């Protein structure tokens, strides 16, 4: 009763209160994002100084380059590496605050321009995979909800396998079957839409398996809840019950896992882009790590951290839209 009264009271104050809540939500997330970005930049800055290895040498092509002392000195002066640590740190933060991510050691071009070229392909791949994963997960849940125990056991077994299979194995098997064996799809993902099919499937299946598992659990809970019985008693058919009443409940834990799904997609993109020879953030990071190109590694880490914060915020918003109950809290 108390809760009903409270929500009624909130509804009166809704226009003002909701706007204020949204402003507060956005302000909180922006502050949180700034903190995360600052922390990631700081962590990486000091980590470089902790590990053995000379940054000047890395700029000139690594320990194998046999750079002369003069060249090393020149590079140190150019990149400000001869300054005191604190000056370098503040300098770095100042440049980041102005949006200057520095110059890639290996590619000799600005990190921002590298990122501008590499973010879109990964964004396309990851968003398509996320959509595909939700379609797969909800589709299987819908199919198995309406069928018997065998179908349920089969689909839950499939989900466990799907969520456990590593990207490199799934991608390799797909290439062997659909590219080498059947010759249906290209083994490398060049710009064409058809080349996207195998990478998207490789990324989507593990996420779908995981979403499917949590979706099924809450779907069964919702189906056993009194409101489902009420809806059926009102004359709602099985598919109407699923789409109009149960899906909302079933989707919630999946939405709460947005941060996790983002991590899986990004980790997967590193492997998948390398496997299918696709350009993108993952491959850029892998090359940067192999060549110890610290500015580029920092740039990719900052972009991913920002993307993570945005994705989690979007997931929270979606959760609020799907489940209006928690909003008075």
């Amino acid at each position, binding site marked *: 009763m108390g809760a009903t009264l409270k929500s009624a009271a909130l509804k009166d104050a809704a226009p003002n209160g909701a706007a204020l809540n949204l402003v507060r939500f956005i302000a909180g997330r922006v502050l*949180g994002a700034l*903190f*995360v970005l600052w*922390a*990631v930049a700081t*962590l*990486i800055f000091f*980590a*470089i100084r*902790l*590990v053995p*290895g000379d940054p000047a040498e890395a700029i000139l092509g690594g320990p194998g380059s046999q750079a002369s002392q003069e060249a090393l000195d020149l590079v140190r002066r150019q990149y400000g590496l001869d300054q005191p640590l604190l000056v370098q740190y503040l300098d770095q933060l100042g440049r980041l605050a102005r949006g200057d991510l520095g110059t890639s050691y290996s590619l000799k071009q600005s990190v921002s321009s590298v990122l501008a070229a590499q973010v879109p392909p990964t964004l396309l791949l990851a968003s398509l995979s996320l959509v595909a994963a939700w379609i797969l997960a909800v589709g299987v849940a819908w199919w198995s909800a309406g069928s018997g125990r065998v179908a349920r*056991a089969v689909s839950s077994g499939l989900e*466990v*396998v799907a969520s*456990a*299979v*590593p*990207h*490199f*194995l799934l991608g*390799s*098997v797909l*290439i*062997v079957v659909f*590219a*080498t064996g059947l010759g249906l799809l290209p*083994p490398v993902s060049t710009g064409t839409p058809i080349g996207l099919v195998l990478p998207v499937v490789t990324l989507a299946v593990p996420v779908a398996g*995981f979403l499917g*598992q949590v979706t099924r659990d809450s779907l069964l809970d919702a189906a056993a809840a009194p409101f489902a019985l009420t809806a059926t008693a009102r004359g709602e058919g099985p598919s109407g019950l699923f789409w109009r009443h149960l899906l909302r409940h079933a989707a919630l834990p999946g939405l709460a*896992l947005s*941060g*996790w799904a*983002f*991590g*899986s997609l*990004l*980790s997967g993109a*590193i*492997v998948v882009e*390398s*496997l299918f020879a696709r350009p993108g953030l993952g491959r850029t*990071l*892998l090359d*940067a*790590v*192999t060549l*110890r190109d*610290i500015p580029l*590694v920092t740039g990719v*880490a900052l972009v*991913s*951290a920002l993307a*993570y*914060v945005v994705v989690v915020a979007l997931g929270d918003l979606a959760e609020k839209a799907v489940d209006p109950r928690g909003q008075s809290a």
Partner: protein
Amino acid sequence: MTILPELPVLPAAAPTRAAEWRSRVMAPRVVAGAVLLGVLAAAVAPGLLAPGDPLAVHPVDAFSAPSLAHPFGTDDSGRDLYTRVVHGASASLLIGVAATLIGTLLGLVLGIAAGVGTRLTDAAVSRVLEVLFALPGLLLALVIIAFAGPGPIPATLAVGLATAPGYARIFRTRIRAVRSSEMVEAARVLGRGPLTLLVRHVLPNALAPVVVLATLGVGQAIVWASSLSYLGLGSPPPAPEWGAMLEAGRTYLQIAPWMTVFPGLAIVATAAATTVVGRAFAGAGRR
């Protein structure tokens, strides 16, 4: 990224359901146990299961498809893949276990610091975890390797460090939950001091699932470590380590898929088996 599944509750074994319980719950566990025993045997005494030399080269036999002489086929230098997979068990298992140990220990330290410390330490640790979560999964491992350089030891360390935030968050939540439980309240009313409360009551209850979590984590750690090897950042070839074997097979995926498939299946089977066994532990702990 490790997301440790909610520990499942065992269904009550009603007598009428006994047969179904046996087939649905026990059968996977028996299979998983057998797989795990096989992997352990291969790790401890590889010579018994595969007497050959995993590094012996026979260029004449290069790229042989699986046959009776070579059940898993041969690689680009004609090395027998069955022998290599068997001899690779110890390295892959060791990396997985070591990474999980690093991850859980660090997670314990952070989780206990946040769970039992003052509000300030809790806030500080939680902030650090939040930042680490923004670099999910392989990304954090790759960033660590960017500093530590490639190789099996940095890769193990990277996987361990990258899994630590997940463990830390679980331990922190559990410690907080147990601290505010009625049981601890009762002990406090009985006059127990804060240290006794912590050591005798809070920690044993909050940290009981550490074994289960670690078992579940080993499979994940093996998959991650082999992903790093696959990307060329782990064990260098020609070491018979599963991830390194995958990397060697990458180039020849189209002409010799068995070079990828068999080490890959070994990884998946081991990871899946540790997960099933870990869940069985979890179920046993609940009863």
